[in-house]
């Protein structure tokens, strides 16, 4: 959600445990403060920055098909990734590329009608939650969006209706009933929801992370429901990102390469293929022979793959198995340097400010140095 009302828990150089409102923020702040790795590592051993950049440049130049992956970062990291992919004729994907690609397929086939977190907070009178676990992904959603009493035209928070694991069936029946289609099944389980929708002025289907094997069908059903309902009344979808740079990677990728993630420059021009350019597929098939993993917001290590790996990453990142070929620690957006990150609905880029000094370079500065090692063709 890119909350801007939480601050770095610094007090006399000690961390203050838990602000009580967002464990995700506390974990992020704590990890950032514990991040001490200032020098690059070659197979786990410290080397100089000159050696590291020379090695990284050589790996990129010699690779037939580098994969720029992860992109768990802010706008600056995302731009760096897209530039790197374009310059070194690689392909770019995001850690959550499967979910982004699924949504893009739906979007590009028919479009949709969506709302924003701010509109839900201020206007929605019914929120139908279609997700598994919003508490983990967006811990403050309840507090900041769903339970607010200060709203534009009413003081009553919206009614929140959470769909259970039978959500696809529920949504399908609901759609059929709203369209007055005959049904040969017991529909009573949807009576309450149907009644709520019929009474609502602005119901919103809020779609968060889903592990359901029918996720794509569930979202498509919601898209269709909203489309149908808007013929007579108001209604909208709200699709939420994960906060791990997924929205920013896709949106900034679009204005850089015209398409977004899963776009390849191996032919010298951008080609998006939501299936064939899956990062995981390119790694498993061996089509990519170099992994560049960019992750500045998360200290999680990259996937363990057979290809040589360059990590441009969070300085608190540790590697439980084999260390990567190269680890280039970089500054953390919103901690060490300024940046921008889209909030989960993609409507607003929120500024991230530098809070403490760091000797580390940004991913953008590193990537510019790598790009500068190989002049473009004329």
């Amino acid at each position: 959600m890119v909350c801007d009302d939480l601050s770095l828990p610094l007090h006399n150089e000690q961390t203050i445990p838990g602000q009580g409102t967002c464990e995700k923020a506390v974990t992020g702040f704590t990890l950032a403060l514990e991040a001490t790795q200032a020098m690059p590592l070659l197979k786990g051993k410290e080397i100089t920055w000159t050696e590291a950049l020379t090695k990284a440049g050589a790996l990129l130049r010699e690779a037939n098909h580098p994969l720029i992956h992860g992109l768990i970062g802010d706008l600056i990291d995302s731009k760096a990734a897209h530039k790197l992919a374009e310059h070194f004729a690689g392909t770019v994907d995001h850690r959550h590329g499967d979910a982004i690609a699924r949504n893009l397929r739906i979007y590009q086939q028919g479009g949709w009608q969506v709302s924003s977190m701010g509109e839900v907070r201020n206007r929605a009178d019914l929120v139908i939650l279609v997700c598994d676990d919003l508490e983990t992904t967006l811990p403050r959603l309840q507090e900041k969006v769903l339970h607010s009493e200060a709203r534009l035209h009413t003081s009553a928070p919206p009614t929140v209706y959470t769909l259970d694991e039978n959500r696809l069936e529920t949504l399908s029946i609901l759609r059929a009933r709203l369209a007055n289609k005959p049904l040969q099944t017991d529909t009573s389980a949807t009576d309450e929801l149907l009644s709520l929708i019929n009474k609502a002025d602005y119901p919103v289907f809020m779609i968060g992370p889903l592990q359901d094997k029918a996720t794509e069908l569930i979202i498509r059903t919601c898209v269709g429901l909203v489309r149908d309902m808007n013929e007579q009344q108001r209604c909208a979808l709200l699709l939420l990102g994960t906060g791990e740079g997924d929205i920013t990677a896709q949106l900034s990728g679009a204005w850089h390469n015209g398409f977004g993630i899963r776009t390849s420059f191996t032919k010298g021009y951008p080609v998006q293929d939501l299936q064939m350019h899956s990062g995981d597929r390119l790694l498993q098939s061996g089509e990519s022979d170099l992994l560049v993993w960019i992750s500045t917001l998360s200290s999680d290590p990259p996937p363990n793959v057979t290809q040589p790996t360059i990590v441009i990453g969070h300085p608190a990142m540790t590697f439980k198995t084999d260390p990567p070929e190269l680890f280039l620690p970089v500054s953390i957006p919103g901690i060490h340097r300024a940046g921008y990150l889209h909030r989960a609905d993609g409507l607003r880029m929120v500024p991230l400010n530098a809070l403490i000094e760091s000797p580390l370079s940004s991913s953008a500065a590193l990537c510019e140095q790598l790009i500068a090692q190989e002049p473009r063709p004329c």
Partner: protein
Amino acid sequence: MLTRLKGARLYDPVNQINGEVGDVWIRDNLICAAPDNPAEADKTINLEGKILMAGAIDIHSHIAGGNVNSARVLLPEQHLAEQARYPQHPFSSAKWSAADTGYRYAEMGFTTVVEPAVLPINAAQVHAELADIPIIDTAGLAIVGNDDFLLRMLRYKAEQARINDYIAWTLHATQCLGVKVINAGGATAFKFNQRQLNLDDEVPMYGMSSRDILTAVQRAVVQLGIAHPVHVHCNNLGIPGNVSTALETIKAAEGMPMHLAHVQFYGYGDQGDSGFSSGAKALADAVMANPNITVDVGQVLFGQTVTISGDVMRQFDARHIANPKKWVVWEGEDGGGGIVPFQYRPKNQVNALQWAIGLELFLLIDDPWRIFFTTDHPNGAPFTAYPELFRLLMDRDYRNLWLDKINAKSADISLLRHLDREYDLYEIAIMTRAAPAKLLGLSDRGHLSVGAIADIAVYQPQDNKAALFGKAELVLKDGVTVVEKGQVVHSLQGKTHAVAPGFDSAIESAVSRYFDRYHLMKMDHYKLSPQHLLETVGSELVLH
């Protein structure tokens, strides 16, 4: 560095120069006086026989922001790449990307382009995108008129001075060059399930009309001394008979400056068998009779495009005509928008008449200082189709050839066949250089005076005006050669222009309290910081 551009035919309406042969001297990034000794030139470029104008300025082209970017993503099939265009420049092979936008505009001799629809909640992304558009200078117009804070002020009868403070604060928060009103109150009404809003209809929950909102914003712009008049997207876009809305809006201006955007989409009568006719004559007469009014056309050109607009109400209404059959409608804090792909077909009666109405307006409004060259990119056509539009305006025979090809009924009822006017190069220089600079308050461009910024476009004279304006022979941006023979040879970072009218700081306290109550972020983080933009996305702001 002293450069002499020697011997071109100059077209510089600000200095009443109409095709006279002369030199232009440039020292670094500015036009300078000729030195006493021409031998002092470090570089001389011989331009004998060529046409030289200031760099062109586009006042209304949707080149950045969430709506544009979402349209790109919606329609990957419309901008598939086939080859690398300029391998030496980053992302030059990516069609309809930020980079491509800068390169393609520069190729035609455009050096400044205004994004006319910056929804404040989305302003940071707009600036990030603008900063990634190479070569050209840019600016944005901030959308107001559906913002709850303003509507509350009007509901509670706030003094005009307080409204002025709020408008000035909005420009400060969004770093924009002017203010745009899109179907004032329309997006708000749509949120309450209203499907149409006329100028005098009441906006639900707020108790004032669309006209009231427009008038308050217009007065604020005038009283704040903002150079660019309020930029108006009227109510009822695209509806047959809507010329009456445009005429009412012109009356509502009450003699004060007002710019009406893409008026082709408001030039529609409702006469005839099909209930759709040209209202261009009535609209043109009204524009000519009201010198406070300026317009840009939003010309339709045939082919595939996509309509993108902050007029969420009208875009939702257009969903049934989407071609291909996919559309997007979105709503956010204080506004919304819609994306509807569309194909304008010459044999389609409505599309053909839209094409003719735009040209009628261009030819009937006989004042190139008050009518502006736009296609409302990409709504009427992508800006890359500009060469075709130049030819249509400058070549009557070419227009008549088209009249034989389009829908016969539309061709018959159009005035176009009876309009002999052809724009000449001097008028083109007014409409695309001198007048836009004046309208935007960018006094350092649009002309060749000493001290002006050295944004220069040079063209090869030829009968085919599309070829003439499609590929500039030479383009200089800030004195640097960026295009030669229609090809980008050098890329540089453009600047983004904005205004900074003063305001009473009390408004900021009120807005801050409002943000704490209703927004998901703090006002201090909502306001764009020029320093932060520079450090992060490389946006260099120039305040006027």
